[in-house]
């Protein structure tokens, strides 16, 4: 009968639906069950191949899987860790790295200089398109591993690069290798702390110079932890302790990196007790965070630098007095207190004061809030009556840009509007095309704790992130002299002199230095985060 069969159909459809929804039990072994294991929340990493990792999520996981050549002490001076000693010649051009003996990868292979040399060659080779390849720029021979696409976006293919291996890397013996730089650089020891310089085991390569396609799903490293299973995309990465690790042994036996798509979802899990550490409390929850977490909410400084660039190619901003006046018209403390609820600190210098040799208040009077003086200076310098601040809306910047505009309006009596563009890329395209975008919202984090990591890419004429077109040859030569200086102390002195030029010229408006605002559950203790926004996996411990 048609009636009965309809109902049978409907009933069985509903039953199948429920069955489908219910089945697929958790076949995943619960790593929380492993004693002494903690969970840390991250966003989905873009890559777990060391030379391709330039963002903090991948970097966190790699910090557990690999052991770096150098680490930094409380004053941000480097000291050798996986390396036994790092020596250089008088000119700071040829560096001899001697590895600590007895270390192995988690698959049993011993760590030798070949592992470093192969990894660095892979990262530097242009066609491998590794995101971190620019870190190898200073090594002699880097230019030969790159190729230029002859017609940009056109259909012609780029020619193969002249070489596949860096000229400046030479193996001396199994535990020693020499790095020759193309220019003297006293700070090289700090640079090699970064992820891109991690070694790769022979098992990572399918053939010479060709990485295994699946290496990034379960990297094999020389660190205190090894992968347990593979990287489960959008869900988690599980690592467990390596037996007999020769270096510093972490206190916890395993870490589950839980991958979240959204910081708010992470926060919900943290408060409910399903997650042990959240590395960045979202701004929407900052207000309730101290109530929810109490003293499990902590702050440590990070190296993030928030600023606004002046388009010096535009006439109306060419007069440095206009820029100085704008700088004095802003109340940085009010912004960090009210808009960021203390999650960031006001910036009164162009380099994070955490970096060795940097001063916290190099900007001096020009970064102090002084509306009367600002207005005087602005009118006498004939500043524009209409100001625009352009930013990318997908970064959550609207609130503070509007606040900044309000401050400028109140202090200088000029019109100020915030203009939102959908993405950073759109903004950068407009700047590259020299359009009238007004002030440009930009941000920066350092690659290594040297002043040069801020001064170089942001302010030298050929700096990779010098979008606003600032050019000053004295500044350029001071930075270069600093890089070539025989000791880091002398380098820092020269870099401070360079920064003084920036204070005079004010090519950008320094606004804020970031802080890590993080929270942790009652299960863990001794939680701290470093300048690179990474949790210190060596000190974190299970609470008694």
């Amino acid at each position, binding site marked *: 009968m048609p009636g009965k069969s309809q109902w049978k159909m409907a009933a069985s459809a509903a039953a199948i639906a429920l069955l489908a929804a219910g089945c697929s039990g958790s076949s995943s072994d619960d790593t929380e069950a492993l004693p002494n294991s903690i969970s840390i929340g991250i966003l989905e990493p873009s890559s777990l191949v060391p030379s391709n990792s330039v963002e903090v999520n991948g970097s966190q996981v790699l910090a557990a899987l690999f052991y770096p050549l150098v680490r930094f002490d409380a004053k941000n001076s480097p000291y050798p860790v996986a390396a036994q000693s790092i020596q250089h010649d008088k000119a700071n051009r040829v560096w001899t790295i001697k590895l600590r003996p007895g270390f192995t990868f988690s698959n049993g292979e011993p760590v030798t200089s070949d592992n470093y040399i192969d990894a660095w060659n892979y990262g530097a080779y242009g066609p491998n398109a590794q995101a971190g390849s620019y870190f190898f720029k200073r090594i002699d021979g880097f230019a030969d591993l790159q190729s230029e696409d002859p017609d940009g976006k056109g259909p012609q293919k780029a020619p193969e690069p002249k070489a596949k291996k860096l000229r400046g890397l030479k193996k001396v013996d199994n535990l020693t290798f020499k790095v020759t730089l193309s220019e003297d650089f006293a700070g090289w020891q700090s640079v090699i702390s970064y992820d891109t310089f991690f070694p790769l085991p022979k098992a990572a390569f399918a053939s010479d110079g060709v990485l295994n396609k699946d290496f990034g799903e379960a990297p094999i490293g020389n660190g205190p932890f090894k992968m347990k299973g593979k990287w489960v*995309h*959008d869900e988690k990465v599980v690592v467990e302790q390596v037996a007999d690790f020769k270096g510093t042994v972490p206190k916890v036996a395993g870490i589950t990196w839980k991958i*979240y798509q959204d910081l708010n*979802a992470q926060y919900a899990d943290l408060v409910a007790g399903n997650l042990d550490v959240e590395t960045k409390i979202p701004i929407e929850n900052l207000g309730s965070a101290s109530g929810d977490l109490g003293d499990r909410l902590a702050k440590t400084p990070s190296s993030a630098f928030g600023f606004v660039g002046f388009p010096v190619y535009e006439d109306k901003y060419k007069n440095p007095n206009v820029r100085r006046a704008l700088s004095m018209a802003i109340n940085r403390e009010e912004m960090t207190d009210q808009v960021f609820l203390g999650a960031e600190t006001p910036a009164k210098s162009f380099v994070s004061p955490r970096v060795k040799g940097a001063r916290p208040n190099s900007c001096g009077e020009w970064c102090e809030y002084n509306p009367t003086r600002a207005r005087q200076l602005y009118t006498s310098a004939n500043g524009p009556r209409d100001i625009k601040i352009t930013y990318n809306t997908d970064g959550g910047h609207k609130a503070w840009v509007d606040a900044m505009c309000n401050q400028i309006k109140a202090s200088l009596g000029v019109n100020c509007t915030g203009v939102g563009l959908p993405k950073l890329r759109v903004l950068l395209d407009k700047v590259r095309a020299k359009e009238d975008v007004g002030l440009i919202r930009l941000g920066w984090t350092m690659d290594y704790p040297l002043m040069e990591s801020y001064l170089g890419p942001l302010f030298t004429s050929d700096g990779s*992130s010098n979008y606003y077109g600032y050019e000053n040859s004295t500044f350029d030569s001071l930075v270069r002299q600093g890089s070539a200086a025989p000791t880091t102390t002398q380098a820092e002195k020269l870099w401070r002199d360079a920064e003084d030029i920036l204070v005079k010229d004010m090519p950008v408006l320094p606004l804020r230095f970031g802080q890590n605002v993080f929270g942790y559950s009652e299960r863990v203790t001794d939680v701290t985060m470093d300048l690179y926004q990474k949790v210190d996996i060596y000190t974190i411990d299970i609470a008694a």
Partner: protein
Amino acid sequence: MFRYIVRRLLQMVLTFFGATFVVYALMFANVDDPYQVLAGERSLTESQRTGLNARYHLDDGFFTQYWHYVKGLLTGDLGQSLTGRPISEMLSQAWPVTIRLALFAIVIAAVVAVGAGVLSGIRRGGAFDTVTLVLTLVVLAMPIVVLAPLAQLVFGIQLGWFPPTATRDANLYQLLLPALVLGTLVVATELRVTRSSVAENLRADYVRTARAKGLAPKRVIGVHVLRNSLIPVITLIGVDIGALMSGAVVTEGVFNIPGVGFNLFRGIRTEDGPLVVGFVSVLVIVFLVINLIVDLLYAVLDPRIRYE
């Protein structure tokens, strides 16, 4: 009927290619420099750009790229997203949890909507009717961007009745809260359609006859009225399943479920052209198949309808 099905299948193929072509063209036109998002705040080096261009054929003209894509599609290779992951792998990981969530949500919504709708339809203007209408109005008025985090906060954190997030392998209990939230998207319309359908059928001649024959009211409603009233509702439910599968973007985001809706949203936000086109292609197929099934079901349920 058979000829009808064949005709529909052929139309599906045409629609599929047309739809994916449009999406492809839109993503191509919109995307200028998709690599910036991979680099973050700094700009890409020239060599990186060259390497990525070669890998994704971005140097070629539009039709060459589209041809590469179609070739891959016909051999089952959906390509790689800009982060290097094969899209077919991402799809196979994202679909199961979305299907489970959508089915669960639909079952809950359908049971609630049909049950309450029938009762409201029978006693129109009564207390139950007014209360349910007001409730559905409230639920309809609250946008899901408010409802989802609120539900998570109240039921997940403060009351602790449900876990606040769900993973890919979530069991029924973990999916209950997200399914409830997702169900609110469709329960209001289904309830009202059921209600008006029942109310209309109660005035039909055959119901008067059945009552006059002396049949028990339960049988009149439970067997005769219900069977006829559910026809529009079932077709609505069928279409809602498709809508829920792709539209669960907010719910999946708030509850951290790595399903189709979330991946699509991420692909659009990061201008990951291959990812968006790959996922949308599969979604188009799902929609087309569901529509076909719903139309066929309509013919099965209502004998007055005949296709040829």
